[in-house]
């Protein structure tokens, strides 16, 4: 468990000393330092063109946080962002939903049946190690430049984190609980519903968080490479016409999208695992 804690340590909270709080400033120090660095970085970025004289060529590629913020504000104010955002979000949502719909049952199945596990193991291991983006040209060939190649690349990207984490969560289910439930006449379906899924929930949530990251990656790259509309397309066009602020605005929107989804997942987990005496295993995955 030790590694888990060390890795999961998000931000300064879990760092040594963060909880000591002998004096008020000491407990505030981590967050102040952290926020300070981010503020400083933004400030330096903002002031860089004033402090250094950029060559005319460099100036074309340079933008500042305020300009990015203004661009973002404009895009929302004029409403021009909604159409591409809707296109990207649709692909993201469909692909992720399909990955959950396929990954959960498959993970449970493979976790329950050693034979199926042995049969599928080579494929799961190989595909999990491979960057699934490699299939993008193939999907483009099969499904064209439309929505479905995007959905599919999101699907294969998000499937494996969900599948493997569900599998591992199921494998770690308490054998005694399973036997108890079985003694009371439960079928495989009841075991899955009553023991497996609740037990695997922290794992599934960790997998979902990874999957969200993968899904965003899939949408972005699929739109860069072969698509006609969407946020990614907007960004590529902006980059080739030197509208660097729009590129960064796109990065911000994608980051916000994945952040929003991640917090949604966390919220759902909190609701679902309210019965748990303590969060047994927060799982990992930045």
């Amino acid at each position, binding site marked *: 468990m030790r*590694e*888990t804690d*060390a*890795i999961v340590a998000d931000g*300064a909270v879990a*760092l040594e*000393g963060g909880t000591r709080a002998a004096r008020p400033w000491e407990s505030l120090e981590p967050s102040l*330092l*952290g*926020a*300070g*660095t981010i503020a400083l970085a933004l400030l330096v970025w903002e002031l860089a063109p004033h402090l250094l004289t950029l060559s005319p060529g460099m100036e074309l*590629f340079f933008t500042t946080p305020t300009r990015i913020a203004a661009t973002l504000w404009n895009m929302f104010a004029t409403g021009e962002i909604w159409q591409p955002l809707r296109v990207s979000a649709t692909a993201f949502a469909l692909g992720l939903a399909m990955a959950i719909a396929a990954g959960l049952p498959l993970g449970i199945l*493979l976790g329950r049946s*050693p*034979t199926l596990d*042995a*049969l*599928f*193991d*080579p*494929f799961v*291991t190989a595909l*999990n*190690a*491979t*960057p699934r*983006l*490699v299939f993008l*040209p193939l999907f*483009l*060939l099969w499904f064209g430049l439309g929505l479905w190649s995007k959905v599919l690349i999101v699907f294969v990207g998000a499937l494996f984190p969900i599948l*493997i*984490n569900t599998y*591992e*969560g199921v*494998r*770690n289910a308490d054998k005694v609980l399973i036997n108890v439930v079985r003694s009371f006449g439960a079928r495989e379906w009841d075991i899955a519903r009553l023991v497996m899924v609740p037990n695997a929930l*922290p*794992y599934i949530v*960790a997998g979902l968080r990874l999957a969200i990251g993968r899904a965003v*990656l899939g949408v*972005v*790259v699929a739109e*860069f*490479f072969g698509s006609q509309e969407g946020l*990614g397309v907007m*960004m*590529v066009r*902006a*980059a080739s016409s030197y509208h660097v602020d729009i*590129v960064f605005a796109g*990065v*911000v929107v994608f980051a916000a999208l*994945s*952040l929003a989804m991640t917090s949604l997942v966390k919220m759902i987990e909190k609701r679902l695992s309210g019965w748990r005496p303590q969060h047994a*295993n927060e*799982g*990992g*995955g930045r």
Partner: protein
Amino acid sequence: MLGPASSEGSPSIRAALVESGAPACTGTATDDGARGQSFAARHRKLLLGGLSVALFFAIWEALFLVVPLNTLFITKPSLIALGLVDLIATGDLARDLAVSAVPFLYGFVAAVLVGVALGVLMGWRVRLAYALDPLMTVFYASPLVALAPLVVVLFGVGVAGKALLIFLLSVFPFIFNAAAGVRAVDPLLINVVRSLGGSEKDLYLKVIVPSVLPYIIAGARIGIGRALIGVLVAEFFAASEGIGYAIARFGDLFALDRMFACILIIMLIAVVFTEGLRWAERTAFPWRIGQ
């Protein structure tokens, strides 16, 4: 499931952290309890796995005998094998791989050097960690791959642009894992070495490095995957050579046999790297097993 060699009953953490970078912990409860059983029973998992792969390719091949499929859109294993032989014989494959390997190497080595150095500093100086951790988390959580068009516009499609993208994608696992590794060094062990009269050198060689290294290798496993994504994205997006470009081009040419051959090569490389590092973790740091 994660690796053919990983035994039954691997403990919880491993998979929950599929990607998050904890050193792999393989099971304590090995399946070697089956000594007395027959060969088939002992190697059941391996046999079944091999069987399923063989069956998969056989069915794929046989499908063409039953259904008249258009080879423009789908290919079969025998054609893929021929395509692969052709790619190897003409040297195209070696050339594309060599082209992709150069930026991969630059970017990845830079990520190791910068990431480990920064991570060790962050693990060592608590204040530095306070200061940098949120910023790094923001970078790690945001889809940096979205900066690809900018990188390409700024640095071109040559080695520099690709290497930068690979570096950006793969540096963060090293930072976070090296920091976690340093923080996990047992202070008690340090005191023991000191009390027994060990020198600074002993301290580093016997305590600190062995404690940090597994974390860094685990980081490398994740970093490799992300670096491969960087190669593919950079070459899909704008390149005129390299393995990623080859896949995209064969797709455009409807040369599915060669495209699949290249995809299989990428899969092979990814599996060799990932499983190789997993194996290295298990053999080089056997004391971690079951921790």
